[in-house]
């Protein structure tokens, strides 16, 4: 059957085996060289006494060529945006421009110390100020902190500010409303800040049920955390009514900015009633995901929340220079040391410069266009549980394929053989067996067509030979891994 279903995008090729670095180590090999010491040698035993370390255990000893080969070989076992489309829904796997990497490594920026005097930190401060101004304009908000290290920490910061705001009014309130379509970090964050979580049901169209919200909203609710477009890729059309309902009862509207790639340059959360939101620079603003971080999660707020921003904030001094302001008595405090993931600020700002107003708008338009092109191409082949218009991502379900016993994860694993990274599986929770697809603006039509062809081909395979799909992937270095065994008896480090 494999002859019938040709994978046009991928071909198998020779793949180097490689052991663990510890297995290549032997005494005497080295990849380092220190300059001669220009100060007197010290007697370590005399200086450190019983605190002196005598042995570093099983640390490796290898040569430079072995290091280069080791990590290069490992790298070839990964899939990456650089190899092709990476349609993970809500993850916004867009192209990571190389100029971003270049400017982040310019010496004065890469080697700047966080505690060097402000007088010789004006360059870094200018980058933070310019990025802040751009993000405020893009979101329509009033004030911002760049400190949070990632989206989830942005949520934490945002909710800490929500809590501080309510406390300043004399009542912290008790709970946070979260739609059933929300990302798992939302409830986890609410719990960290000491709020109870109350679920909000979606309506038939996959949107916040405004009538249910009206019934559930009261003076105990501190905020509603909404993702817009939501995790179905659907724009909350009644967002202004939602905002009014919250505000009428003194609550706040929090927006998870995970899906901001659908909105930049077309509409602004600040204009439709959002009080506080986080952004993911590693999604919307093209900083690389790097195999799982570093991210960066700035939080933008309306004026009423500005006094509660984490310290320090960047300010303009009376003499026109920039500086950090630490004296902010109502601040929620620090959420991490220093000023945040500065290296990501550089990359995000370079992205904004490379786009400008026209480019940012076109980026959004192309992202939405690409998602709708995939939707059109796969409609009929896969079940579309909500036919509400899609923005930057589309969510199908495995309803048709599961009749043959093939679930979304199986389809995803087979997609690997076709040379694509899987889409997001089994999320959002309100769609059983979800296939959540976000192509981003980066994909040319040729790549989208290959993807649609691959998905259709897999659907045919399900009809012809479901077991073949259940056994996928067939072309990777390793087949499906035993995750149960890994969790039952964890092996989390190498031992000699």
């Amino acid at each position, binding site marked *: 059957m494999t002859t019938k279903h040709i994978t046009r995008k991928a071909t198998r090729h020779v793949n180097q085996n490689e052991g663990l670095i510890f297995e290549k180590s032997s005494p005497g090999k080295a990849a380092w060289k220190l300059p001669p010491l220009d100060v007197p040698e010290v007697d370590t035993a005399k200086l450190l006494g019983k*605190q002196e370390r005598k042995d570093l255990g099983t640390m*490796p000893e290898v040569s430079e060529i072995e290091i280069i080969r080791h990590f290069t070989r490992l790298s070839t076992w990964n899939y990456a945006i650089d190899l092709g489309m990476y349609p993970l829904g809500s993850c916004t796997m867009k192209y990571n421009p190389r100029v971003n990497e270049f400017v982040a490594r310019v010496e004065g920026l890469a080697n700047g110390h966080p505690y060097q005097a402000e007088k010789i930190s004006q360059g870094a401060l200018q980058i933070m100020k310019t990025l802040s101004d751009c993000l405020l304009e893009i979101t329509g908000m009033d004030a911002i902190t760049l400190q949070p290290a990632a989206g989830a920490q942005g949520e934490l910061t945002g909710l800490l500010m929500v809590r501080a705001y309510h406390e300043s009014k004399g009542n912290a309130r008790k709970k946070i409303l979260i739609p059933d379509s929300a990302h798992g970090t939302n409830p986890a964050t609410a719990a960290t800040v000491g709020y109870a979580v109350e679920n909000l049901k979606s309506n038939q169209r996959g949107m916040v049920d405004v009538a249910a919200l009206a019934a559930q909203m009261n003076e105990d609710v501190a905020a509603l955390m909404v993702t817009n477009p939501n995790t179905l890729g659907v724009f909350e059309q009644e967002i202004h009514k939602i905002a009014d309902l919250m505000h009428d009862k003194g609550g706040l509207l929090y927006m998870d900015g995970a899906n901001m790639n659908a909105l930049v340059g077309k*509409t602004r959360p600040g204009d439709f009633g959002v009080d506080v939101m986080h952004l993911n620079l590693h999604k919307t603003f093209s900083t*690389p995901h790097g195999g799982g971080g570093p991210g960066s999660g700035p939080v933008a707020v309306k004026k009423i929340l500005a006094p509660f921003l984490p310290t320090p904030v960047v300010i303009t001094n009376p003499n026109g220079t920039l500086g950090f302001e630490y004296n902010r008595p109502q601040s929620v405090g620090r959420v991490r040391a220093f000023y945040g993931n500065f290296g990501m600020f550089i990359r995000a700002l370079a992205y904004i410069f490379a786009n400008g107003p026209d480019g940012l708008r076109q980026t959004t338009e192309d992202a939405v266009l690409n998602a709708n092109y995939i939707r059109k191409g796969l409609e009929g082949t896969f079940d579309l549980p909500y036919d509400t218009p899609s923005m930057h991502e589309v969510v199908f379900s495995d309803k048709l394929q599961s009749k043959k016993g093939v679930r979304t994860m199986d389809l995803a694993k087979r997609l690997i053989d076709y040379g694509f990274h899987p889409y997001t599986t089994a999320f959002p929770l309100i769609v059983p067996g979800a296939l959540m697809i976000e192509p981003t603006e980066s994909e040319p039509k040729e790549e989208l067509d290959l993807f649609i062809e691959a998905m259709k081909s897999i659907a045919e395979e399900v009809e012809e030979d479901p077991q073949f799909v259940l056994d996928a992937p067939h072309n990777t270095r390793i087949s499906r891994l035993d995750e149960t065994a890994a969790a039952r008896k964890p092996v989390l480090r190498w031992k000699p």
Partner: protein
Amino acid sequence: MQQAIGIRSIDDLFSPIPAEYRLARDLAVPRQMAESEIVDWFKQRAKENGEGYSSFLGAGAYFHYRPVVIDALVQRGEFLTSYTPYQAEFAQGTLQAIFEFQTMISELTGMDLANASMYDGSTAAAEAVMMAVRVTGRQAAVIARNLHPEYREVLNTYATHQAIPQQTVGFTSSGQIDLKQLEKLVGDDTACVLVQSPNFFGTIEDVEAIADIAHKRGALLIVSIAEAVSLGIVEPPRTADIVAMEAQSFGVPLGFGGPYCGVLATKEKFVRQMPGRLAGQTVDKNGKRGFVLTLATREQHIRREKATSNICTNQALVALMVNIFMTVYGKVGLRELAKQNLAKAAYAADQFSKHAKVLFAGAPRFNEFVAETSEDPYAINSRLLGHKIVGGLPLKKFYPELGNAALWCCTELTTRSMIDTAVGLVAESERSLLTKDAEPEEVTR
């Protein structure tokens, strides 16, 4: 494509957005720039950012040499532009690298195992305290006053809504924490004692003695390590229960404070209460060794509001830098590197002590020391800037009781001539203060 979808114009796709909220104008952001303009703009900012200065700053962010293979390898697109390795068959490179990282961190810290990384050292310390609360079922924490002041601030923020009462243990004239006071503070409700070693003043703590006090009352000991290179020559805190580390020193650029690489290491019995991602070894259907993210039932995407933490991402690419750095230096190189740091700081402290008061003598230190001058250290630093040298960190902002003391750091990149120049200027300032009231230049932070 528009035809295929059946729309007349792109705007049709945005019709779900109510008309009154559609942006009808251009965003007021800088105009589109060419690549050459972008590079120029950032190079200009770099010039305004201390480019070409040598520095004596440490205090949680250290300037060490970064072997060039690090950037050559982390910029491979397969590492740079991949996602969290949830699809294990397609992400074995990242997963095996994490497994090696976990192994080396465990080995260096003397713990049984380590996670795949945390945001940074400050949040790692805060998460460690919350972990200790879960492990012990107790609420209170005793925190060292010589723990990095910004780490303490972050812990305060995290602890506010977790109802974790905190007490602070002070330090003695050796710069180490006050063990007698600690004895009194640790009680039956204490979940953990959190100290840093080498501590914020660069002094190495007597971890064993602290562990005894904590363990006697059933509390856990958390040791925060901000200067990872110290592990090459300083005995690791083997008696600790959790090590909360900042691994920036291992090949991560200073980058004006981030991104860095936090990591937690602990005893095997506590692993299910540890937050953050973990890579584990397993086999595929054919019995071939492979790696997966494991013990995910601790995490937010499964447990939602009952998760051990809301943490979602780690710092994978930065952890890869750390990994490569540890591999380059390895078993022998790390020790030699640490020895050079020790020697440079010892020489500098010796030279400073001829003209200023070096505090906290009497306890071993690694690559930082505290020197007290008669003149305000901000004024001294201001003059040093004229020689393109960034002086030590004045401590009065964090420790008003230490007056004109500053924290100086030397690494393998600090040259003898830098040290001699700085000492010369400090000596000059001390001499002139004896003769007349010096007029400080513009005082910078």
